[in-house]
């Protein structure tokens, strides 16, 4: 078993940690850094509860080895708000009642933030008509459903998650 010292930024804060090289990002966050917002739903890449942002992109904490993130910037659900000011996506989830038990919510929130950024950069999806360009303002429910398809909700709060994501665009 080998250990390594790892230097990365988590939620804007520089962290130096000593990790077992086999640690996943999710275990590092939860077990070593005490950031238990990110959830372990399946540990198999299927549920999205462990979604965090690395340099603004959505990644699954359960499938990424922490040592590959030397120097990276990681944002978890704990880092979305600006002090007491909730992130617009968090606000929208509250307003739309977009959860029940809340277990999937941290992943849904990080995923929605990363997704809106992808749309802002014009990334197409499988439901984007060929040749069409996507924008945050023209995003419809079908695009949101497809683009959030990596985040499962066992409570079935989708009917409120989709409107919440749409509302958060403003």
């Amino acid at each position, binding site marked *: *078993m*080998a250990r390594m010292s790892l230097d990365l930024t988590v939620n804007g804060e520089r962290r130096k940690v000593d990790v077992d*090289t*086999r640690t*996943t990002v999710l275990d590092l966050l939860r077990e070593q850094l005490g950031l238990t917002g990110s959830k372990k739903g399946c*540990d*198999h*890449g*299927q549920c*999205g509860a462990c*979604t965090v942002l690395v340099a603004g*992109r*959505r*990644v*699954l904490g*359960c*499938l*990424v*080895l922490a*040592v*590959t993130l*030397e120097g990276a910037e990681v944002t978890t659900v704990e880092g979305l708000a600006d002090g007491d000011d909730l992130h617009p996506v968090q606000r929208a989830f509250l307003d739309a009642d977009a959860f029940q038990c809340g277990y999937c919510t941290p992943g849904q929130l990080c*995923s929605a933030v*990363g*997704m809106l950024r*992808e749309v802002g950069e*014009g*990334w*197409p*999806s*499988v439901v984007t008509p060929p040749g069409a360009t996507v924008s945050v303002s023209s995003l419809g429910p079908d695009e949101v459903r*497809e*683009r959030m*398809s*990596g*985040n499962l909700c066992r409570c079935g709060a989708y009917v409120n998650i989709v409107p919440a994501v749409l509302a958060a665009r403003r």
Partner: protein
Amino acid sequence: MSGSVTVARSLDQALDALRSGPDARLVAGGTDLMVEVNAGRWQPGTLVSVDRAPELRGWHRDGDEIVLGSGLTYAEMERGELARLVPALAQAARTVGSPQIRNAGTLGGNVVTASPAGDTLPVLTALDAVVQIAGPEGTRISPLREFVRGVKRTDLRAGEVVTAVRVPALRGAQEFLKVGTRNAMVISVVMVAVVVDLDGHTVRVGVGSAAPVPVRAPLAEEYVGALVDWERARMDDPTGEVAAQFGELVAQATSPIDDHRSTAAYRRRAVAVCAARAVRRAFQEPESP
């Protein structure tokens, strides 16, 4: 996991690290390998992460060919100039797993995993892709149809790294169709890729999930190739008979099985329908605006 993880920052470092022992394994996006590890199905000795090796990233043009780095992610295949150059690969990439899986999963990982349900494989098969490999004895190439040996079996030898996959840049339509139980996060029941080569006057088809390895359908390709008006890049098929016959011939080239996801009979039928639809789309008149 019993051993340790090394992060290779270059191809040479990866090759060196692989020499550390026979149980050393590469990990790229981790979307196949880490699932095995987390499930406790398999305990790697040394894992060598190639996620940060620049030689494996991105893609570039090389004359009439496109060199796709093994570290190319689905998210990168889905959009931009590459999506215009190899549209079937982009279409396939957009259907893989979920957005999070597509941000991490790589072409090299898909090829080396060599699952019959690997979504890029029918496209690469239709394109006659060639796998570029670096190893202890230098570099070599292996055509994809030889590289993929069987269900999850490849020609990759100990200490080797897949560096890139080469495909031709072709003029002509490309289509990829996939059948699954739902749209997202689903392992394919069948997939069909159709690639038209307007300069070579050929129609090529690659089929996945319908045999142990991805297959071509030479009889179907010849049949339809002879009926295309290559000057106009059109297929005269007012009744749809040509497309249907093409679909039948493609289905005959497969050897599907019954498993927990589907039946052989359904797969054969789905291949025929998808192939017919793909070839129709490939030769349809551009829609008037």
